[in-house]
C-alpha cells in the first residue's frame, strides 16, 4: 500500500514537471511568434543579452511580446487557481470565478468608465477602466461574502447569489450599451472579448505579487480543502472550520479573479478547464491539484495567445473568442474520453 502511494505521488510530481516543460515551450514560442517570426535561439539570445540582436529586436521582445506572453501565463494561472478553489469551496465542478458574477460586475465597471468616465477610485488616470473593473469585481465578492455571512455560508446560497448578481450586472451593462455612442460600444465589446494587448509590466508585477501570496495561502490550507471534498459534514467532523475556510478562500479567490479579469477582460473558459485537466491528471489532493491547476491554466492561456497570433498573420484575435471556439470542444472531448479510472 505504502509503495503504491509513493509511486502515485512520484507520478504526480512527474505530471507537474511535464506540464511545466510544456508551459516553458509554449511561452518561448509565444514570444517568438508575431508579425515577424524569430527562431527560438534568437529569442534566448535577446533574453540573456537584450541588445545582442540590435535595439529593434530588444524593443519587440522586451517591450511588446514579453509582457503579453507573461500576462498570458500569469492570468491563466490566476484564473485557474481561482477556479480550482471555487470548485472546491462551492462543491460544484462547474463553478469558476464567473459563477459569482465577478466577470459581469467587472464588465459593468469597465463600461461605466468607458461610457460615463466615472471612476469609483479617484485619480487613477489612464488606468480608469482597469481600476473600475477591479473595484466592481471586488465589490461583488465583498457583497457575496456579506450576504452569505448573513444567511449562513452554504454553497447553494453562494451560487444563487452569483446568478442574481450576474443578471443584475448584465442588465446594467445593457443599459450602459444603450446609452453609449458607437465608438464606446465598440470599446465595451472589445473589452468584454478579452485581450492580452493591455499587458504591462506594472500589471504583471501586481499579478505576480498576488499569485506569490495566493499559492502559499492555498497550499497552507490544502488538507482542510481536500477534506472539504469529502463533504461538509465529514470535513467538520475532522476539525475543519468549514465556514471560516470558505470565507478565507473566497477572499483569496476574489482577489485573484478580480485582478485577472481587470487585466484582460472576460476570459471565462480557463478557470474551468485548468482545474478540470489538473483534476483528471492528479486527482484532488490539493497539494498537487492547486499547483497543477495553475500550470495548466497558464499553459492553456499561453497556447491561446500563440494561436491568436498564428491564425491570420498580422492579426491578433481576442483571446476570449479563441478560448471559447477551440477550448470548449477540446474540453468536452477530454471529459468524454477520460474516465475516473485514470486516477489510479
Amino acid at each position, binding site marked *: 500500500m505504502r509503495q503504491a502511494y509513493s509511486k502515485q505521488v512520484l507520478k504526480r510530481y512527474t505530471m507537474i514537471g511535464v506540464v511545466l516543460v510544456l508551459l516553458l515551450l509554449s511561452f518561448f514560442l509565444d514570444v517568438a511568434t508575431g508579425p515577424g517570426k524569430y527562431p527560438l535561439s534568437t529569442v534566448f539570445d535577446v533574453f540573456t543579452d537584450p541588445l545582442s540582436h540590435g535595439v529593434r529586436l530588444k524593443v519587440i521582445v522586451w517591450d511588446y511580446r514579453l509582457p503579453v506572453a507573461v500576462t498570458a501565463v500569469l492570468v491563466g494561472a490566476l484564473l485557474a487557481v481561482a477556479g480550482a478553489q471555487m470548485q472546491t469551496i462551492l462543491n460544484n465542478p462547474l463553478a469558476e470565478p464567473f459563477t459569482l458574477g465577478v466577470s459581469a460586475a467587472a464588465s459593468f465597471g469597465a463600461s461605466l468608465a468607458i461610457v460615463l468616465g466615472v471612476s469609483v477610485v479617484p485619480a487613477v488616470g489612464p488606468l480608469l477602466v482597469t481600476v473600475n473593473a477591479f473595484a466592481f469585481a471586488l465589490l461583488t465578492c465583498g457583497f457575496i461574502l456579506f450576504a452569505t455571512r448573513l444567511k449562513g455560508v452554504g454553497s447553494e446560497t453562494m451560487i444563487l447569489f452569483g446568478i442574481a448578481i450576474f443578471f443584475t450586472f448584465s442588465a446594467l451593462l445593457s443599459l450602459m450599451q444603450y446609452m453609449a455612442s458607437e465608438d464606446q460600444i465598440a470599446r465595451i465589446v472589445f473589452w468584454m472579448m478579452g485581450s492580452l494587448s493591455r499587458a504591462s509590466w506594472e500589471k504583471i508585477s501586481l499579478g505576480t505579487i498576488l499569485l506569490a501570496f495566493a499559492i502559499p495561502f492555498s497550499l497552507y490550507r490544502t*488538507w*482542510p480543502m481536500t*477534506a472539504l471534498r*469529502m463533504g461538509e459534514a*465529514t470535513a467538520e467532523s475532522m476539525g475543519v*472550520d468549514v465556514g471560516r475556510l470558505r470565507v478565507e478562500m473566497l477572499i483569496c479567490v476574489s482577489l485573484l479573479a478580480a485582478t485577472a479579469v481587470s487585466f484582460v477582460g472576460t476570459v471565462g473558459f480557463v478557470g474551468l478547464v485548468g482545474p478540470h485537466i489538473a483534476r483528471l491528471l492528479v486527482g*484532488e*489532493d490539493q497539494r498537487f491539484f492547486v499547483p497543477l491547476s495553475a500550470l495548466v491554466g497558464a499553459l492553456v492561456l499561453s497556447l491561446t495567445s500563440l494561436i491568436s497570433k498564428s491564425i491570420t498573420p498580422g492579426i491578433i484575435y481576442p483571446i476570449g473568442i479563441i478560448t471559447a471556439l477551440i477550448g470548449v470542444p477540446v474540453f468536452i472531448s477530454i471529459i468524454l474520453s477520460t474516465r475516473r479510472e485514470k486516477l489510479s
Partner: protein
Amino acid sequence: MSLTIDHITAGYGRKTVLRDVSIKNIQGGTFVGLIGPNASGKSTLFKTLAGLIKPSTGRICIDDQDITTLGRKERARRVAYMPQAFGCNALLTVFESVLLALKQTNGWRVYDDNLDRVAQALHALGLSHLSDRGISDLSGGQAQMVAVAQTLVREPEVILLDEPTSALDLHHQLSVMTSVRAEAQRRQPVVMAALHDLNLAAKFCDRLVLLRNGEILADGAPEKILALSEIGETYRVQTSLEFTQSGDLYVDARLAS
C-alpha cells in the same frame, strides 16, 4: 483516562434537543452503545461532544479537563467523530482519503509514520485491497468502512461513531464492530457508537445508554438495560431478553399489539 458528560443541554438555535444529559465516568477502553429511537438526540449528543454544537450549559471533561473550552483543531485531535453521512464524488483514492483524515490534526508534511498508520488502519478493517480504489467508486458499505478507518486512524482519546454499521451486511457489521472493540482494548480510548441493532449493541458493548427525547432514560450494563421495560416503551415494541447457547444476549422484538 475517563470521559464525563456533565449536565449538558444543547440544540440547534432556539430548539433544545438535549436536556440535562449526564453520563459519568466512562473509562478508557470502554465501548459504550448509545441506543434510542430516531430523533432521540444521539447524533446531537455526538456533535456536542465533538464540538460541532456548543452546549448552552454543562461540561464535557476528559479526566479533569473541560474540553468545551478547547479550540476546534485541538478538540478534533482528542475527539474523533464519524458522522452518518459518508461517501462523496471526490477524485481521491481510499488511501488518500484516510491519510487526509490523519493530516487534519497532524501537521502539513507526510511522513513515513503517517503512511504506516494509514496502512494499519486499512488493514485492521480489511480494506487493504481497496487502497488504490477511487473513493467515489465504492459501494455504500465500503464507503462506510472507509469512514470508520478515517476515524480510527487519528488515534484519538474519544471515538464517536454515528451508526457505523447502518450500510453494512452481516459479515461486515461483525467485522467492523470487532475491529472497533479491538481498538478500544489495544489503545484504551473511550468508544461510543450510536446503534439501532440492539443485538449488536448487546454483543459488543460494555455499557449501554438509552436516550429518549433528548434525555437519558437508563445507563448501565447491557443485560441490565436491555431487560428494562423502558426499552419496549421507548421503541414502541414488545421485547423479551434471552441468552443464546453461546451465552450472548438476544433481544427478541415484535410490534406491540
